[in-house]
Each structure stands twice: as structure tokens, then as C-alpha cells.
């Protein structure tokens, strides 16, 4: 049985990989995928106007960000991005807020035309 299970897993694994390749090959990477969909991570954002989409982080921080006004769809201006592990300054609801790189990596923004 163990053999069959291993075979099944192996086949599924290959199939899964091929599925991913088929659907995401045009993007090459996650960042490209975001770019294609008009989105960007906050840590990669160049200064400009964006909309906040989502923050993937712990419950506590998520709640804090919500209270600070990081609501989905909220307008947000990236003021300064020091890049390469540095922090980012954004303006949201008239407040300037500095975010560390680690959080900024987990925040998605929608670019505004």
C-alpha cells in the first residue's frame, strides 16, 4: 500500500507542479504576478498613490493596522521608500506612518491609475 500511496503522491505532485507552471508561467514570480494584476507589495512600492488591499500578519498587528485606518480600499500615499531592508513612510487618513520592512513585505497595495 505504501508503494501505491507514494506513487499517487508522486503523480499528484508532478501534476500539481505542471498546473502551477501552466497557470503562472507568464508571471515567472509572485512579484510579477502582482504586477500583472496591478498590485504591489508595500516594500516594493515606489512613491505615489495607492489603495490598501490586505495585510497578512498576526491577529494583533492586523487589528492595530485596522484601527490606524488601514481599511481595504483606503487611499494611501507612499511618501518614501528607503528600500533594501529599510522602512517605508506612508500617508493614510492624513497621518504619516512609518512601517518596518518586515511588515511592509506582507502588505499588498493596488496601484491607482
Amino acid at each position, binding site marked *: 500500500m505504501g508503494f501505491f500511496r507514494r506513487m499517487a503522491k508522486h503523480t499528484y505532485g508532478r501534476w500539481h507542479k505542471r498546473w502551477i507552471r501552466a497557470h503562472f508561467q507568464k508571471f515567472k514570480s509572485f512579484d510579477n504576478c502582482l504586477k500583472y494584476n496591478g498590485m504591489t507589495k508595500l516594500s516594493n512600492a515606489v512613491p505615489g498613490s495607492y489603495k490598501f488591499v490586505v495585510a497578512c*500578519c498576526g*491577529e*494583533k*498587528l492586523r*487589528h*492595530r*493596522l*485596522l*484601527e*490606524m*485606518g488601514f*481599511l*481595504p480600499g483606503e487611499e494611501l500615499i507612499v*511618501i*518614501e521608500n*528607503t*528600500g*533594501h*531592508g*529599510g*522602512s517605508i*513612510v506612508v500617508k493614510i*487618513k*492624513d*497621518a*504619516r*506612518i*512609518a*512601517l*518596518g*520592512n*518586515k*511588515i511592509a513585505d506582507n502588505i499588498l497595495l493596488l496601484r491607482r491609475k
Partner: protein
Amino acid sequence: MQKNIKIKVALAGNPNSGKSTIFNSLTGSNQHVGNYPGITVEKKEGSKSYKGYDINFVDLPGMYSLSAFSDDEIVARDFLIKEKPDIVINTIDTTNLERNLYLFTQLTELSVPIIMVLNMVDILRSQGKVIDKKAMSDLLGVPVIATVANRKIGIDDILDSIVSLFENKKLKHQIRAKVDFGDVIKEQTDKLEDLISKNPTLSIFPGRWLAIEFLDNGPSILELISETNNKSEILTQLKKSKEHIKEHFGEKADKEIVDRRYGFAKSIVKTVVKKTGQNKVDITGIIDSFVLNKYLGIPIFILVMYVIFKFTFTFADPMVNLFGLLFKWIEGVVASLLPIGPVQSLIVKGIIGGVGGVFGFFPMMLFMFFAIAFFEDSGYMARAAFVMDKVMSRFGLHGKSFLPLMLSTYGCAVTGILSTRTLDSKRDRLITMFIAPFMICGAKLTVFALIIGAFFHAKYQTGIMVVMYFLSIVIALGIAKLLSSTVLKGEAAYFVIELPPYHIPTIKGLLLKMWERGTLYVRKAGTTIVFASILIWVIFAYPKAPINENLSKNEQAALQTQYSFAGRAGKILEPFFKPIGMDGNRAVALIAGFAAKEVIVSALGTIYAIEDDSGENLPLKEKIANDKDWSFLKGITFLIFCLIYIPCVVSVIVFFKETGSSYKWLALLVIGSTASAWIVSFIVFQIGTLLKH
């Protein structure tokens, strides 16, 4: 009217909403700072008599919401709920009205009378907007007062409305506007409220607020449930309610609640704020484009630090000298008043000498605090944390950790340790407190100046000093890295801080802040310094050496050192210090350095008093330089040992208190630092000797 009825007033508001400035202008200098029991959050209280009332103000720590997140916010929330102030003043930064109103929407649910104070109206006007106070007051049902706290406008209006609100019982329940959460959420909160009212421990809280907070998933509010008896009932109902809301809206309950609150705030902003003119120049934006710049940020930061220290040293030096003279004078007066004997020796040499040595730094500290308060109040410190976060996060530290380290570099480790209170997470605080004593503080500087002066040509002295500073930073950051990757594993608290708009701080506010911190230092250190200096005096003065008439005064002093407990301990410890190139005398000096690092210099002075035969008044520096027992390598090893070994007693005690009396950390600091100092200097000394041969 009855006289002197007490009114308890709490000031609540977002961080940077100008709460402290309003507090200062309300109370004047009539305020004092204490600690909330158990935790290290400062409690600021002040009072004012006005129209026959004693109004007692409490300045709560700044908070973004009542669903408390950090220690500060838990304190503020508990104060509002448990101590039930008569009136809450909600300070609001009008330039950021929407987010400040978010806290207001929560405060209204607590059913306490609120006075809304609109701050920084002038900045809003310069942005070309005005607020319709009357409309706002009518809409919300609370008195609204506009102030420019920097210039003391509207402070009397606040006092007037406190009194009238207190006298007028009807007004108290006048809050008209509350956030409407809709039928679906209302239905669920009603159910929860029912359960809460049955519960004895939870029913002290306002039911509706608590029910919404439960749904809102406030991190610390859920801890309240665990203390109660019908806990499981509430929890199952809560889970059901959350699921119901999620099913209905397709969003999590807390998001829905925050959304509604912000919707409410937004609608108020829309009706109340009117645009009148053009937006003038955004000064904050212009300054920030330089200060936060990718390339200019760090140079500007270094420049600002330079300005702080230049300011401190230029203005504090005469004061420090004056203080020194003052203590000398007191010493002289006391010595002439008391008869010669052990009592005189204890008071003059033990207490006044010891205390004077440390308090001599007091004016310098005041100037330093003043300069730092200036940059804090003007809004630069938050930017500095932003600039430094990149460097600090590499070593597992938080961006705000730079301030304690900087304070202990140029001032004293004690102030550095005390200033770690600005850090939110316990882990970051511990690491920063642990490494703060390893920086070169003002006291260590004297030791370094002596030894470097003795062994290096004047041309290289500054260079070596810079190398030593660099080395201390490397050691401290190395320890931070080590701690964060072993004992205190885990991520540094995420770096989210608000950058307040720049404004010119008031002199009064700065002076108050300076005084407050200065006295805190004196109180913390004062008691221990007196105790420690008596102890040091005892171990150096007893047992007494036999008095030999033939010896000079200096020789007698040196003999006394050898006879004393400290001298004997040095002799015993000599085998331990031999491998790192030190004799018993230097061991004694180092042990004495535990009292305060400056003592190393004075102890060496006493020891060397005997060892020059040629006798003339050579400076200590040259005596050391001429001594055969010292060498270049031994000097370097001595310095490295000084750099790492046990911090002075005051900082150890403050560290112990600030870690919440943790013996584990105390032991790690004391034993760990001394052991590693020995190991490092052993390696340096042995390799050095090998290279020489």
C-alpha cells in the same frame, strides 16, 4: 457653592495629539510623575483650583483605541473603566480628525461625560480648512473647545466647561451621536450584553461597550473573560455571534465594526470641516523629504546627534565645574565642623565624596535631557527611529532602541536603561537594557582618557578613542545579536510608528520634561548611591592600618589601601588577574570601579601615591606611563576589561528594578559580563604576549 469639591478629570487622546501640552498648560508646574503599580508606565497627575473646585487631572498615555494593544493603552483603558473619572477630556488633533474621532466613538460607549478639545486648529487653518465648532457640538452632543495649546488659547474655556459640565448633571447624558452598528450586530450585542450583565466580574464594565469589544476581538479584552464563571457560555455565544456576522457580511466581525466606526467618523468630518482657501506650503512634507531621504537621512541624523552633544557639553561644562566646587566647599565646611575621626571620615569621604562624584553629572544630564526633549517634542525623534530601524533590525533590535543606547553612550547607562520605557515589547526592552551598560558612558570616559593618555602619543589619542567607541558599539550590538538568536529568540516587535507633524516646542514643556526626568534619575540613583558609597568607604577604610609616624600622608593612604578589606581581596584575587596581565593593585581599582567607574581613576591615584620615589607631583598619567609594571599591551587589556566587565552598581540596580526584579537577568548581566570580560582580555593579552616574543 460648596468649596473645594474634587473633580477627577482624565485626559485621553491619540499619541501626538498634543495631550501633554494641554495638560501642562492646564496644571502649570503643579504636577507630579509616578508609576502605575506593577508596570513601568509613567502616571502623570496634576491639580488646579478653579472657581472653588479642586480639579485633579490625570494625563493618560496616548492611545489609538480602547481595544488596548500595548502596556500604555491597557493602563489608560483600565483607568477610564475602573476608576471612573468624572469627566474625560478627549484631545483631538484636527489635522488628523478622522482617526482621532475613532477613539471618540469608543469613548462615547463608556457613558462618561466627554469634553472634546480640538488641538492644532492653527495648522488646519494653514491647510486652508476650518472646523465648524458649533455644528460639531450639536452633532455629537458634547462641548467642543478649540485651542492652540502652544499659545495658551482656550485653556480657560476648558476649565469653564469642566465646571459647568460637573455642575450640570443633565448635560452628562447628552451624548447624542453614537455609532450605529446596524440591526445584525445589534442583535448579537444584545445577546452578549445579557450574558455579561449576569456575570459579577464583567458587569462593572459598560455592557454595550464590552459586548462590542468582544466582537471587535480586542487583544487584551479577551483575557477578561477567562477570569469569570459563566465563561464557557459567553465564549460559545461570542463564537456564534462572530460566525453569524461573518456569514451576513462576508467579512470578519472586527473589520465590520472598525468599518462602521470609521464610516461614522468620516461622515462627521464631511459635515464639519469646510475648505475655505488654498493649501499653503506643507512644511512637514518639505522637511521630511530631506530628513527621511534614502541618502540624506543618516547624515542628517548624525548631524542632529552632534548638535545635541555639542549643546550639552558647551553649556554644561561650567555648571559641572561649579557643582564640583560646590561639593568641595561642602566637604570643607563639614570637615571643619566635625571633629576628626571615623564619623567625619564617613560623612566627608564616604557620603559627600561618593554622592558628589555622581551628582556632579547632574547638570550635564539636565542639559542633555533638554536637548533630547527638544528633538522629541519637535517631532524629529520618531524620524530618527525610522532612519535607524534599518541598522537596528539587523541586530534583532527595534528602531526605537537607538535612543537608550545613545543616552548611555554620552550620559549614563542609568538614563539609558530608564529610557527603554519607550519600547513596547518586553523582549526589545530586555535586550536594549542589557546592552546599554556596555556603551562608553561619561564615567568610563575618564578611565579611557587616563590610560590612553598614558600610552599613546597625542597624535593618535583621538583615533584610539574613536576605535574604542567603535569597539563598544560592536560589542553591544554583538551581544544584542547573540541574545536575540539564543535566549530571547523571536522577531523584534514590528516597527509601526506615527510621524507627527513638526512643530516648535514650548520652552515650558521642555523645562517640565527635563525636570521630570532629572528628578526621576536623582530619586532612582540617589538612595543607592548613598548606600554604595558608604559600603565602598567601609571596605577601603577598614581595618585600619597601624599609624606610622615616619610615612608621608600619601604613603599612609597607600598602606591603608593594602590593609583594607578591598586590598586584601585584591591580593587574594591576584592569581585570577595574573593571566590577563594585572596585579593586585589594579584588581583592587577594578573592584572599586563597581561603585562607579570614575572610582577606578581615584583608586589608581591612591595606589600610585606611594610608588614614586622621586616624589615630585607628577600627574597620575605620567606615573602610569613610567611604571615598569605597565606596558602598552597591559594598558589595552585593562581598557578592554573595563569596557566589558560588570557595570556600575547604580546601573545594575536600576537594571534589576526595570526587569521586574528578575534575579535570572541580574545574574546573567553580572556574571556573564565579568566572565566574558575576563575571557576576551585573556585572549587579547596572551596573543599579544605571543606576538611580542
